[in-house]
């Protein structure tokens, strides 16, 4: 409610500032009889920006210091014996009063001092909101008055607005970059905390994954060898690529070189639908259909294939990746200039010779790039392996047995009760960081190769 009021107030201020800037600029121009440098809309927009900035700064300041001030106020209202509490006990006492004040209710009986404190908090909140709204509106109006004075015919309002827009665009693009850095930093931070519990050497080179249960305070640490998980990840990804690469490549060759336009117009969108299916759907497709089918097939030929295994997960993941490879490779093959194809055909090469000896070699860097991007997707894929790989973090070579991957283990370690104090949950960050470094490396390498390919024909 209060937020809505603030938003409405800001909007009103903005509208007022825009209108004032607009009309003031015209009035100034008429009065002095000179031509405006910028059209009135720019003066209006500039006034609005100048009003918005201080008001937003005031609100931002309150968001930053408000919660601390509120907490200090509550503490000042508590009896000395309660205020002397520490840690969780104090936090829960404060939380009870905030819950009472906001009317969401608390468990157990309400002590008289709690009710009194809650009432005082209500008043404090009302007062602080009024102060904040007043301050925001006040600075806004003040800014408007100042800005009105600035408006003269030669004011370069358009240039200033263009600068503001440029800054806004820069800020938007900075968000993605900063988020990436923030995620990496937090991964690093928590991973380093994990390595205070577990020796990095044991983590990166350990062959046993047995984290034990999160029993805080027992001192039991468990074993955190990442190798079984990495092995599982690599095995599933390798099986997936064994499925996806040949099928995807052949599909791309057919679509780009042999298919008539009519066939392509029908087939290509259908293949791309494969890429749009949510991975969880592939997951239960693997669990319910492919796993049992593989297992039955194994029985028929006398091989023991478990229904949830690296094979099942890899097979389904491969199907998921086919459109990724076929689509990228199709685009890359079409980028090879038609004159090369004609040149080869004109020498009496068959279409097949042309594809094998001219088109594929010319497109090879691009295809390698597509392949690496697909591998990094396979490594990061989660839902299919959660459901269909069997979740068995043991180092073994048989793909027909259950395995576990890095992604699956992260899911396991973070679901359920986790307090982020022990290695059992912190290990997720170390695993995430490892995964991130792997996929980042592959992506950078793939982009490098794809870029080199592009330069070749431009």
């Amino acid at each position: 409610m209060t937020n809505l009021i603030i938003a409405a107030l800001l909007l009103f201020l903005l509208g007022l500032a825009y209108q004032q800037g607009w009309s003031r600029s015209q009035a100034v121009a008429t009065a002095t009889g000179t031509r405006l440098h910028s059209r009135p809309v720019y003066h209006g927009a500039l006034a609005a920006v100048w009003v918005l900035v201080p008001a937003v700064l005031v609100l931002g300041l309150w968001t930053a210091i408000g919660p601390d001030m509120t907490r200090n106020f509550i503490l000042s209202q508590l009896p000395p014996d309660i205020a002397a509490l520490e840690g969780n006990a104090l936090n829960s006492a404060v939380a009870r009063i905030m819950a009472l004040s906001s009317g969401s209710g608390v468990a157990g009986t309400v002590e008289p001092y709690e009710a009194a404190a809650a009432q005082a908090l209500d008043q404090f909140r009302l007062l602080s909101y009024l102060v904040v709204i007043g301050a925001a509106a006040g600075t806004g109006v003040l800014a408007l008055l100042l800005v009105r004075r600035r408006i003269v015919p030669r004011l370069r309002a358009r240039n200033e607005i263009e600068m503001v827009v440029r800054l806004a665009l820069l800020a938007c693009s900075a968000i993605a970059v900063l988020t990436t850095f923030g995620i990496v930093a937090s991964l690093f931070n928590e991973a380093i905390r994990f390595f205070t519990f577990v020796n990095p050497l044991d983590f990166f080179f350990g062959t046993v994954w047995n984290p034990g249960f999160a029993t805080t305070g027992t001192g039991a640490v468990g074993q955190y060898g990442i190798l079984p998980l990495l092995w599982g990840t690599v095995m599933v990804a390798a099986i997936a690529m064994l499925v996806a690469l040949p099928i995807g490549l052949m599909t791309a060759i057919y679509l780009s070189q042999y298919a008539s336009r009519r066939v392509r117009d029908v087939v290509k969108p259908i293949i791309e639908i494969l890429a749009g299916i949510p991975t969880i759907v592939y997951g239960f497709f693997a669990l319910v259909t492919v796993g049992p089918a593989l297992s039955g097939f194994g029985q028929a030929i006398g091989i023991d294939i478990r229904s949830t295994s690296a094979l099942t997960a890899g097979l389904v993941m491969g199907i998921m990746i086919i459109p990724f490879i076929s689509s990228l490779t199709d685009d890359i093959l079409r980028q090879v200039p038609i004159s090369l194809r004609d040149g080869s055909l004109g020498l009496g090469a068959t279409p097949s010779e042309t594809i094998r000896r001219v088109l594929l070699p010319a497109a090879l860097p691009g295809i390698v790039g597509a392949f690496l991007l697909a591998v990094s997707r396979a490594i990061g894929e989660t839902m299919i392996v959660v459901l269909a790989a069997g979740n068995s973090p043991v180092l073994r070579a048989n793909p027909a047995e259950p395995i576990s991957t890095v992604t699956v283990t992260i899911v396991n370690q973070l679901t359920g009760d986790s307090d982020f104090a022990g290695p059992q949950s912190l290990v997720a960050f170390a695993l995430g960081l490892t995964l991130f470094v792997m996929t980042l490396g592959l992506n950078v390498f793939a982009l490098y190769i794809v870029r080199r390919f592009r330069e070749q024909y431009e």
Partner: protein
Amino acid sequence: MDMMAGKFAANVTPLEEGMSLSDHPIRLEARDVCVHYGAKQALYDVSIDIPDRAVTAFIGPSGCGKSTFLRCINRMNDTIEGARVTGRIALDGEDVYDRSLDVVELRARVGMVFQKPNPFPKSIFENVAYGPKIHGMVRNKAEAEEVVVSSLKRAGLFEEVKDRLHEPGTGLSGGQQQRLCIARAIATRPEVLLMDEPCSALDPIATAIIEELIDELRENFTIVIVTHSMQQAARVSQKTAFFHLGKLIEEGDTANIFTNPAKKQTQDYIMGRIG
């Protein structure tokens, strides 16, 4: 008209002493060739005889169908979706559109050089050896080298590239690339060489070198060249065919076409009034 005639007459390559075009046997014979791209007709009833061991030039303004007709001869139009060719084109009396004819074999006999130099992204050596290799014409490295060297020599490129045969063909200059493509085309020992505006992407000096080369190649190949440059047609060809709006307007000895055209359209084009 007399002024124009004088201008071109000096350029026309004369036939060998005491020889007329009619002494050259007919190599290629086209009768009533029509080409449709989808619903659009690009070529109307073209009939022409192309003499052996001489250069025949197709001239005409852009979009007149001369390249389309050229691409019919080695059936490169097959690669264009929706293209349909009717009529008869015979190479040594054999219909190239006959069902029994293998298009791969045809293209080995009828080489082609394209408008834009299109060397493969391979080494100079591999570019020239490509055709002989896929046709099984060379059995080992020594034979391949022999073919590559002799083809490059005939294309007048060998001296310039002999020290870098294993460097990429795409690293050569435009004119060198085009001569590389000519070497690549003659390496498969074709009987007919089709050239689709081979000099349009080249500077005047590279153009002069290629024209000289075409004149030399005429001793061993039947050459058909498409060009938008009338001067080029006059310089290199013995027979000229003028195309306009998909129709073959006039054909004959180059000297005749440029000095004494029978049709008004040909005359207008040569005088620079159309195109």
